C-alpha cells in the first residue's frame, strides 16, 4: 500500500487546479498588461482569480497581492510593517517561538537592523497565551505576528482574540496562515487580521504561487520595482497558470470545507488514538485547538529519520523534526519550544492528512508505525537503558 501523509509539506494538485491551469498553458497566453484582446482575456482571468481568492478570505480583491510563495508573503508583510513602524518611531515586534523560519529569519534580520523582538513562549501545548501577549505589548510595538496553524504540531492559535487585542492597541497584526487557508475557516474581517500570508501548494494548487492579504488602509510599499503588476507593488508579469490554479483550488477547498474538515479530523483522531497506544509515546500540541490534518508524535528511544525511512520502505510518506532530517545538530525549534528534551524531540514523527486520504490508509499507518517503532527500539541502546528503569512494555 502507498500512503501520502505529508500534506503539510505539500499536497497533490487537484483536478480543479489542473483544469484551471491548462487553458493558461494554451490559448490564454496573453500578458494581462497588454491592451489587445489576448491581453484583456488574460486580465479578465486574473481579475476573476483575485476576486475568488478575496471572497474565500472575506477580503476585497484589491487587498490581495499574488506572490511567488508563502515565504515571500511573510517577508513582505513583516518588513513592510516594520518599515511603517519605524516611520512612526516604533521599533518593537512581538512574535512567538514556534513560527516558521520564513517569519523567524525575517525577524532576525530586523533585529540586526535595530528592531527589538519579543518571542512569546508557547508552553507545553504549543499555544500563545493572551495575557502574556498583553503584557508584552509596549507603546513602541508596531507589529504582532503569530501563525494561524503550526506546520509541525498543528496548533491553532487564538487568532481572533489576538487580532482584537491588537486592534484595541492600534498595533498591526500579521498571521502566517499557510497551514490554515483552505483547511479551516479564515475570515480576515471577523478574525481582526491586518495582513495574512498564504501558499497555494498547501491546498492542492501548484508550487510557485502564494498571496499576501493586506488591509486596504495600510500603505504598503513596493516590494519588487519595475512594473505595474499587483497595483504597482510587486512588479513582474503574473504567473497566470499558477494563479488561476490557486484560485480554483481555494474555491474548491472553501466550498467543501465543512465536509473535508469532518472527514480529515475523523482520520486525525483515529490516528491519535491509535498511536497513543504505543508505549512511551506522546502526542505533541494542543488536543483541542488543532488543525484537522496534522498529527505529531514523539516516540521515546528511537530517532526520527530512521523511523521516517522505515515507513518510506513500507510505502508511507511522513516527516520528522529530528536533527538528522533537518541537516542540523538540533531537532526542530518547535518541539524544543514545547519543552521537550533533545533526546525525545529526535524521535518525532509528523503525519499530515488531506481530504484525499482514506480510513483504510489510516488503518495501514496504524498497523505499520507500531511495528517500525518496536523494531527500532529493539536495536536502540537508549531503549535498553530505559528498560533498566522500567518494566518492558513489550513483555508478553
Amino acid at each position, binding site marked *: 500500500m502507498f500512503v501520502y501523509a505529508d500534506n503539510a509539506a505539500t499536497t497533490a494538485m487537484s483536478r480543479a487546479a489542473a483544469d484551471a491551469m491548462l487553458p493558461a498553458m494554451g490559448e490564454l497566453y496573453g500578458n494581462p498588461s497588454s491592451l489587445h484582446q489576448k491581453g484583456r482575456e488574460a486580465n479578465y482571468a486574473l481579475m476573476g482569480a483575485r476576486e475568488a481568492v478575496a471572497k474565500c478570505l472575506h477580503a476585497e480583491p484589491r487587498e490581495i497581492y499574488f506572490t511567488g510563495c508563502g515565504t515571500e508573503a511573510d517577508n513582505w508583510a513583516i518588513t513592510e510593517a516594520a518599515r511603517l513602524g519605524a516611520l512612526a518611531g516604533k521599533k518593537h515586534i512581538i512574535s512567538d517561538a514556534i513560527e516558521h523560519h520564513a517569519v523567524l529569519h525575517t525577524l532576525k534580520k530586523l533585529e540586526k537592523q535595530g528592531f527589538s523582538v519579543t518571542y512569546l513562549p508557547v508552553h507545553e501545548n504549543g499555544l500563545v497565551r493572551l495575557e502574556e501577549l498583553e503584557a508584552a505589548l509596549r507603546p513602541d510595538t508596531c507589529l504582532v505576528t503569530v501563525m494561524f496553524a503550526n506546520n509541525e504540531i498543528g496548533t491553532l492559535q487564538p487568532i481572533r482574540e489576538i487580532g482584537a487585542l491588537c486592534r484595541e492597541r492600534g498595533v498591526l497584526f500579521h498571521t502566517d496562515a499557510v497551514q490554515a487557508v483552505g483547511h479551516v475557516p479564515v475570515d480576515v474581517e471577523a478574525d481582526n487580521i491586518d495582513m495574512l500570508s498564504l501558499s497555494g501548494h498547501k491546498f492542492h494548487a501548484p508550487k510557485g504561487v502564494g498571496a499576501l492579504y493586506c488591509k486596504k488602509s495600510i500603505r504598503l510599499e513596493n516590494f519588487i520595482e519595475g512594473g505595474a503588476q499587483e497595483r504597482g507593488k510587486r512588479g513582474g508579469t503574473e504567473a497566470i497558470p499558477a494563479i488561476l490554479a490557486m484560485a480554483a483550488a481555494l474555491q474548491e477547498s472553501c466550498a467543501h470545507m465543512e465536509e473535508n474538515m469532518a472527514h480529515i479530523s475523523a482520520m486525525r483522531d483515529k490516528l491519535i488514538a491509535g498511536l497513543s497506544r504505543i508505549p512511551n509515546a506522546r502526542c505533541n500540541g494542543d488536543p483541542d485547538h488543532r488543525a484537522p490534518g496534522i498529527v505529531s508524535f514523539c516516540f521515546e528511544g528511537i*530517532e526520527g529519520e*530512521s523511523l521516517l525511512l522505515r515507513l518510506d520502505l513500507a510505502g508511507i510518506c511522513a516527516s520528522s523534526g*529530528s536533527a538528522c532530517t533537518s541537516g542540523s*545538530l538540533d531537532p526542530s525549534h518547535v518541539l524544543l519550544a514545547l519543552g521537550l528534551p533533545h533526546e525525545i524531540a529526535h524521535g518525532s514523527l509528523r503525519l499530515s492528512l488531506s481530504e484525499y486520504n482514506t480510513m483504510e490508509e489510516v488503518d495501514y499507518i496504524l498497523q505499520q508505525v507500531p511495528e517500525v517503532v518496536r523494531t527500532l527500539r*529493539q*536495536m536502540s*541502546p537508549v531503549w535498553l537503558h530505559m528498560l533498566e528503569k522500567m518494566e518492558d512494555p513489550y513483555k508478553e
Partner: protein
Amino acid sequence: MAMEYSEKVMEHFAHPHNVGVIEDADGVGEVGNAKCGDIMRMYLKIGEGEVIEDVKFQTFGCASAIATSSIATDMIKGQPLNEALKLTNKAVVEALDGLPAVKIHCSVLAEQAVKAAVADYYKRKGLPYDHPCDACGEEGCCGHSHGQEEE
C-alpha cells in the same frame, strides 16, 4: 534538500547485520550522545588468538548511523583485534559507497564504537590499550569535525 543515501546504505539500514546483544560479551563500548541523536553500543566476543568471534550492535540514530554500525561489524567479525583496530571511518564510508557530507560523523562514531569495545576488553583483561581515537580520545563526542574533513 533531500539527502541521497547509496543503495548499500539503504540495504544495511533496511536489513542490518549483527543487531543485538551479547549477554556474556568480553568487551562492550558505547559512544555518542542521545542529545545529539546518535548512540552506538558494540558487543565483542573474543576467541582464541584474540580473534573477534562474534560482534553485535545496538544503535539509536539515523539510517546512516544504523548502516555504518552494521557494516563496521561485518568488517571486523572474524578479524584479529589488531586488525579490527585498523578500521577507519574512511574505510567504513568507502564500504558503504559513500555517505552524504553531513553524515560522515556516523562513520566516525562506528570507528569509535569498535575502539571503545576493544578498549573495554583490554581494560577487563588488565592489559594496556594504546589506540584511542586520534582526534577525540576514547569517549564518543558529538559534533566534532574530524571525520567531516575527510570526504
